[in-house]
């Protein structure tokens, strides 16, 4: 019998290896798997490459991983925010590498990683400094760059509900990178606020079919990122 549900956050991330590439869903606080990130912090894997839209806020989530020295590199579209000091300091100190990728190119590279497309041409970043080092080609007079797929070892994703097959639905703008990240990782680990019975999700409404999900873990009351940030909480490895 297929059952993707695991009993704890600890179990969900137990086998993440040093040096793994980890996709992290979320756009700002919406859809950020903070609980899974903290489980990973406690688990101890290091030398990680993170792929996410941002680079973490305050001293929690991705920022806590960076602060604990676990992150060797980050690929993101926008590492700068009002509360991204942890990343900024690590970057200026040369402790972390950064690859800035336009947001749509980042999304498409991840989708292609899951879709078996090794590379694609896009007009985005053509004629800009971000085209440097990339293969350039014109299509219909438009300057395009060749972009490679992103594949990962792990995806950490936050969704609304899962059934035992791992079928997922999301919640409002927390959907963002979740669906594509589940497809591009060898092991997609999803925290959900709710388990539902097989068949409760309408087949017309499932956003991520269970084939893309390896583990689902119930977090009924996920960490409220905004509240933690306001409280100035520093999350350290346990």
């Amino acid at each position, binding site marked *: 019998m297929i059952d993707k549900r695991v009993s704890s956050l600890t179990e969900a991330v137990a086998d993440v290896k040093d040096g793994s590439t980890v996709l992290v869903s979320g756009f700002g606080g919406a859809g950020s798997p903070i609980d899974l990130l903290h489980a990973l912090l406690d688990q101890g894997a290091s030398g990680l490459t993170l792929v996410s839209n941002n680079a973490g806020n305050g001293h929690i989530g991705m920022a806590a991983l960076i602060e604990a020295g676990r992150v060797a590199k980050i690929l993101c579209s926008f590492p700068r925010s009002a509360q991204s000091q942890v990343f900024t300091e690590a970057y200026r100190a040369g402790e972390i590498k950064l690859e800035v990728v336009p947001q749509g190119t980042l999304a498409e590279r991840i989708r292609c990683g*899951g879709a*078996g497309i090794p590379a694609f041409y896009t007009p985005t970043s053509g004629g800009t400094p971000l085209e440097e080092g990339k293969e350039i080609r014109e299509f219909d007079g438009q300057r395009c760059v060749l972009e490679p797929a992103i594949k990962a070892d792990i995806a950490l994703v936050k969704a609304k509900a899962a059934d035992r097959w791992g079928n997922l639905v999301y919640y409002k703008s927390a959907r963002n990178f979740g669906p594509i990240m589940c497809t591009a990782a060898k092991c997609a680990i999803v925290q959900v606020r709710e388990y539902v019975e097989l*068949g409760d999700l309408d*087949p017309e409404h499932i956003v991520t079919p269970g084939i893309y999900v390896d583990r689902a873990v119930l977090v009924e009351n996920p960490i409220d990122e905004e509240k933690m940030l306001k409280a100035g909480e520093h999350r350290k490895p346990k």
Partner: protein
Amino acid sequence: MSEAWNNDQIAAFIARDIPDGAYVNLGIGRPEAVANHIPADKEIILQSENGLLGMGGVASDNERDMELVNAGKKPITMLPGGAFFHHADSFAMIRGGHLDVCVLGGFQVAANGDVANWSTGEPDAIPAVGGAMDLGVGAKQIFVLMTHTTKEGEPKLVKEISYPATARGACTRVYTDLAVLAVADGTFIVEDMVDGMTLEELQKRTAAPLKAQ
């Protein structure tokens, strides 16, 4: 040699060899029979390239809905937990390596895993490939279900395919009416044969060297 296995018997062998929890696409035609032989103690999730995951069996007359069909365009049902998605998402699933097994019909399989199943290469044939090439490169394992020889007795397991390729180096197992074979390291390895068949007899019907398990 006793009688050759019929398609249902072959399909049952395949169903036996597919692991519990596997995601599987069954090609149009002969492979569809595999769905009828999945043991009750296994949960195997069937994908159909027209945008279905968690396909059930063939629809009964009162379930029949021509807007719910499989890749062979036959009306089918869905299991609880099934999902619908569009064609680009479906082939992202296929090409992206998410299916554990695809069972294809075949014209020829070569010892290096090359599969030919979409065209006999006749000059006047209307070419038609469907999803076979995507499945061939995408699924983690390709099982081919076919007769061991053509109606004319020509071997279909060969050193090199002479028909146009569907996918190169893709086939991992072959299930014929005479034998079950693994394809590994450029060789056909015989795992099972119909009762009374000897390796020597099977070799006569096969155009590539066979190896006993």
